[in-house]
């Protein structure tokens, strides 16, 4: 192989990062990167000038990417934002805003929403201090509180955070008695867990490294026209889809039939494909599993092997040299060479980071030009290790330090072996290293000194990168970079033969999904907002295809992108055709405002496609409503035992008692056949309430449904009156009564409230009427940021059997997999478009 005959002058400094005073001098501007020093003879000067292609531009065919597939039926909600986590307000006069996590608000919300969980164990412990029934008799003990009196004092009013609320002596006594316990133990224990969780969430918000590498891949098919997109789908991203796509010449890519599916048991984080010696493999990484499939003659995936990674897998890559060989790395710092035939071979293990100490456990492994040498990367550097050499030795390929003139706080986000270079273009020894600020090209034959550095300036972490084949018979290879927030950048790399790698032209940005907003019809603000949120969802996968040349008239490029909401968008690009409007060639009188005014515009076909997609999106039910805390009206809870008996619902009472004794949820079906469509005991609403309710419903886009319902209610109005007492008992079934009360105590079962529960403001007005509190729904309704805390907390409680979600969730799985409990009930079928395909094989 040739080595560049003359490298760009660079100062070489060793030391920690942040010393980039002079050494950065040759990397300041992109035009500098494009320049090369003329070779020894000044006659060659003209050739040097020719190297810079001034107008290397890929023109998008449309102003923004278009949806490729109809949206999935799984509801999606945008995740946490900084607003949910950060403390608002603060010191106004600080020069710098301070980042403070808002634990107080989260814990207060938690206590309101999950008060049953938070306080039930204490209630149980303090059972002997409460006197629940026997209203008349007064107890002598000062440590026993009469609950009924206490509640009467409260008068149904719960002083929600109101410090001036009236307090009776009894209440004061109670608060003195319970204060130390209620105030400290619950709060401190919970706060600790919650704090831990919030830190985790905040770090995840700042940098979500799970999908490093991307979860979208293109598998070429029988003919160059066909291919398959492989990507995860489903609310929990745990269903692997194989969607056949046809690249019709001169037309938009079209999908064929329904996708094949494989149901997995964890969210898919990374999908990698590669063809080596005619054998196409597909490698998939989940949080704790890795699996590899092989595409057979019929382009059907067949599972080769799946493997569990206890410490959590962070990266997987396919060997570009040997068929069926992979490299995987885990959070423990181990890197293994894995081939389905020979099994695992640990080639490196170091729990510490390479260059300096960093807390991140993220690791990455990739191949190099030598099939037995791997690169191992972490946040502080990249090292080359010989798998056949003695363990522990290796050569640093990239160091976050003065060698590459790194900035303070700079860390490696992604490292990739640029494998798909055709030999006549870039040499096969180049590695890409991306940090928050810059992009480096490092040649493994000259470690530590980057061949090229470019400040990408992306405002989100670069976790996706792809080197594309040269579009034209020239020696410029596009390198596509993808930021998590959806930004795409295209760089043009040149460096054939004996010349050093360089930028062949100014970098270019590609439209992101939010640029497609104008293609959608004009919408109501609320739906518009929802669409915007959807388009803004983080990008987690990138795939590119060069459509077959003989078919397309001009060389082109199709970029597919996958968002975390499960949407696949595509964008067609073509190199600028009109022979570069070079400034010397242009007449000075030309007064076009800009030589590259965006010529692309939306065609009616595009907008029609977009509105169709939107229609399908709106059919998708919105994310399940925020969980509403069960409320109890204590007066009726205590005072209506007689009433209950009068009604003779002895049987239901028995069921309730039984459920309480077992500590499980009482479901509606336990209470026998009940009319399901019965509306919930809505607050008795006057005409004024009706108006606001109607407005509210109309705002939520359900105006017509509300009117329909209203009409039905009116027609059945007269019949409602006699049925009312009965309805109350039904309501009790919607309570989640996690507190463990012994029925033998003679306490009354929870009873229905008569009027609107005072002060109990439902957290969401959209609570569905007949929402059953099945375990799934129970978990789904809880805001995701609180699930883990809740689970941790429950795990430490003595009342584990009360927690319904423990049944369905393996303790090791992550928070996001709780959503999977819902979808796991699907039978894992790899369904073909028409006929049932090969026997499904479970991945994990």
């Amino acid at each position, binding site marked *: *192989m*040739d*080595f560049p005959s003359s*490298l760009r*002058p660079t*100062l*070489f400094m060793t030391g920690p990062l942040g010393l980039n*005073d*002079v050494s950065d*001098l040759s990397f*300041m*501007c*992109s*035009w500098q990167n494009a320049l090369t020093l003329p070779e*020894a003879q*000044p006659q060659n000067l003209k050739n*040097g000038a020719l190297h*810079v292609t001034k*107008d290397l531009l890929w023109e998008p065919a449309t102003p923004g990417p278009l949806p490729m597939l109809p949206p999935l039926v799984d509801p999606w909600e945008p995740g946490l*934002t900084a*607003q949910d986590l950060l*403390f608002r*307000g*603060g*010191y*106004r006069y*600080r*020069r*710098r*805003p*301070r*980042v403070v996590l*808002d*634990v107080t608000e989260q814990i207060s919300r938690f206590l309101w929403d999950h008060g049953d969980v938070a306080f039930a164990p204490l209630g149980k412990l303090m059972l002997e201090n409460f006197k629940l029934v026997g209203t008349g008799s007064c107890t002598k003990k000062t440590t026993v509180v009469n609950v009924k009196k206490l509640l009467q004092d409260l008068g149904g009013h719960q002083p929600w955070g109101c410090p001036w609320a009236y307090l009776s002596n009894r209440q004061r006594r109670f608060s003195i008695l319970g204060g130390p316990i209620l105030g400290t133990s619950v709060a401190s224990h919970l706060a600790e867990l919650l*704090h831990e969780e919030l830190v985790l969430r905040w770090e995840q918000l*700042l*940098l979500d490294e799970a999908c490093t590498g991307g979860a979208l891949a293109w598998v070429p098919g029988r003919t160059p026209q066909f291919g398959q997109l492989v990507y995860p789908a489903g609310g929990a991203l745990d269903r692997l889809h194989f969607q056949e796509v046809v690249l019709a010449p001169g037309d938009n890519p079209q999908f064929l039939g329904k996708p094949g599916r494989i149901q997995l048991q964890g969210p898919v984080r990374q999908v990698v494909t590669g063809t080596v*010696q*005619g054998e196409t493999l597909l490698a998939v990484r989940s949080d704790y599993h890795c699996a590899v499939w092989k595409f057979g003659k019929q382009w059907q995936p067949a599972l080769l092997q799946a493997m569990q990674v206890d410490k959590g897998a962070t990266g997987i890559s396919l060997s570009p*040299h*040997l068929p069926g060989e992979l490299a995987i790395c885990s959070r423990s710092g181990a890197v293994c060479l894995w081939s389905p035939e020979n099994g695992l071979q640990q080639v490196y293990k170091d729990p510490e980071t390479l260059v300096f100490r*960093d807390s991140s456990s993220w690791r990455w492994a990739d191949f190099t030009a*030598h*099939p037995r040498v791997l690169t191992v990367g972490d*946040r502080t550097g990249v090292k080359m290790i010989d798998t*056949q050499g003695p363990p522990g030795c290796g050569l640093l390929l990239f160091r976050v330090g003065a060698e590459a003139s790194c900035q*303070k*706080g700079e*860390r490696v986000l992604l490292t990739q072996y640029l494998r798909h270079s055709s030999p006549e273009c870039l040499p096969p*020894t180049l590695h890409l290293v991306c940090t*928050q600020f810059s992009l480096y090209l490092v040649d493994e034959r000259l470690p530590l*000194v980057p061949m090229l550095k470019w400040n990408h300036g992306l405002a*989100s972490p670069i976790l996706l990168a792809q080197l594309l084949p040269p579009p034209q018979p020239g020696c410029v290879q596009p390198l596509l970079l993808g930021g998590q927030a959806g930004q795409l950048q295209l760089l043009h790399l040149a460096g054939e033969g004996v010349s050093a790698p360089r930028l062949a032209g*100014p970098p*270019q*940005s590609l439209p992101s999904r939010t640029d497609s907003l104008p293609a959608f019809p004009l919408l109501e603000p609320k739906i518009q907002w929802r669409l915007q949120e959807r388009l803004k969802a983080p990008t987690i996968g990138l795939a590119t295809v060069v459509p077959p040349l003989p078919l397309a008239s001009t060389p082109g490029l199709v970029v597919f992108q996958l968002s975390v909401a499960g949407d696949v968008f595509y964008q067609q690009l073509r190199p600028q055709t009109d022979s570069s*409007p070079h400034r010397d060639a242009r007449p000075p009188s030309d007064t076009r405002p*800009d*030589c*590259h005014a965006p010529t692309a515009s939306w065609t009616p076909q595009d907008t029609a496609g977009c509105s169709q997609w939107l229609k399908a999106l709106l059919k998708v039910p919105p994310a399940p409503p925020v969980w509403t805390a069960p409320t109890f009206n204590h007066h009726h809870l205590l005072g209506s035992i007689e009433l209950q008996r009068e009604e003779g619902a002895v049987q239901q009472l028995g069921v309730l008692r039984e459920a309480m004794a077992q500590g499980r949820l009482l479901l509606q079906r336990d209470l026998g056949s009940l009319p399901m469509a019965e509306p919930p005991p809505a607050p008795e609403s006057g005409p004024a309430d009706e108006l606001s309710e109607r407005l509210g419903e109309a705002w939520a886009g359900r105006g017509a449904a509300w009117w329909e319902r209203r009409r039905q209610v009116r027609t059945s109005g007269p019949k409602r009156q006699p049925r009312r007492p009965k309805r109350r008992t039904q309501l009790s079934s919607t309570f989640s009564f996690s507190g463990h009360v012994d029925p033998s105590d003679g306490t009354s079962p929870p009873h229905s409230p008569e009027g609107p529960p005072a002060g109990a403001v439902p957290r969401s007005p959209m609570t569905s009427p007949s929402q059953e509190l099945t375990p799934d729904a129970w978990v789904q309704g809880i805001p995701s940021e609180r699930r883990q805390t809740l689970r941790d907390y429950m795990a430490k409680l003595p009342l584990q059997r009360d927690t319904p979600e423990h049944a369905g969730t393996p303790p090791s799985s992550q928070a996001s997999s709780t959503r999977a409990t819902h979808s796991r009930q699907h039978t894992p079928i790899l369904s073909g478009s028409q006929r049932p395909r090969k026997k499904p094989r479970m991945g994990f």
Partner: protein
Amino acid sequence: MSDFSEELKGPVTDDEQVETSVLSGAGMHFPWLQAYVETVAIGGKRKKDFAQTTSACLSFIQEALLKHQWQQAAGYMYSYFQTLEDSDSYKRQAAPEIIWKLGSEILFYHPKSNVETFNTFADRMKNIGIMNYLKISLQHALYLLHHGMLEDAKRNLSEAETWRHGEKTSSREILINVIQAYKGLLQYYTWSKKKTELSKLDKDDYAYSAVAQDVFNHSWKTSVNISALIKIPGVWDPFVKSYVEMLEFYGDRDGAQEVLTNYAYDEKFPSNPNAHIYLYNFLKRQKAPRSKLISVLKILYQIVPSHKLMLEFHTLLRKSEKEEHHKLGLEVLFGVLDFAGCTKNITAWKYLAKYLKKILMGNHLVWVQEEWNSRKSWWPSFHFSYFWAKSDWKEDTALACEKAFVAGLLLGKGCRYFRYILKQDHQILGKKIKRMKRSVKKYSIVNPRL
């Protein structure tokens, strides 16, 4: 309530770097943190309208640049100059550099800009950001060089070289060295032009002595300019190359060799393969003894075993009398073929086939086995798979034959690659294949002769 500003970095924008560098430890910086924080009112000083408009303008410029809308970017740039008036002293100081970066980029690509515009801009910027005088001068000179204006570039660098302002810092000294070296490089270009002129002239020509005098003058200046820089650790390929060429021209061989040896063997320098390549080429030109050439290439072999000079290295080793060199010769060939970029190098395969046969005939089976042991687990699927047999035969029959011979020697006659090539009926190569079959039977390491 917990305070995270210590562990989780404070916002790091250009304008706040000063403060964070004081406050933060060695943690990671998130350039996008600022955007998150701005969505929540979490206190801190409110940005002034001025700061807001300038930062918005900056992002517009960057966006336009990435869309190659040079004229639009130039329009925004016009408004961005207000940042020079910023009341924030840190921002005011950082502004010239940002303006230079963006402005030079716009002017480099702008369809209506020309060298004069660029010159005017660069001259203005040099004096606005006094701190950036040297860097801008250097880049300006590179721009001029790119446009073929050698003389202007040289003048620019000379001006920068003599520029003095404030106290001397080590980094500025290095910069001045770099500038001098570039100046030296420019002088070298002129020199080399003169040299070609000289070679065209007759010695008896009356102009000869004048030109020769010129050539000598240049060389002296250049050596002063370049020699200072190439002592500082770095990658200085173009400078070293030109410097050595001049030294060589004037017969200062020892000087040239010293420069090259320092460049190659100084431990403070990065392990630059070119340093060794230059030294090797120099020694070759000087007709240095074979042992010296071998010792230079031995180091290059350790750094870049895939370099194309390795085949030359192999030839040298093969011709050497020492037995250990013969062994190394085999190692080098195997080493070259380990790399993905060299798998189709027919010369390497040819050498290996020939040399393997020679070694095995010379009863050095152990050498081959030593090399083969670490490769037998992966070479068969890397080089000698059925897939490659088919595709190699289709693309390059000569290559396929060489590979098949090696495969046969290393894996025995049962090897798939060997069998596939053997089965092919080729009229011209028929004889060769037959000969190959015989040799494999005789020398293959799989069934050692008893």
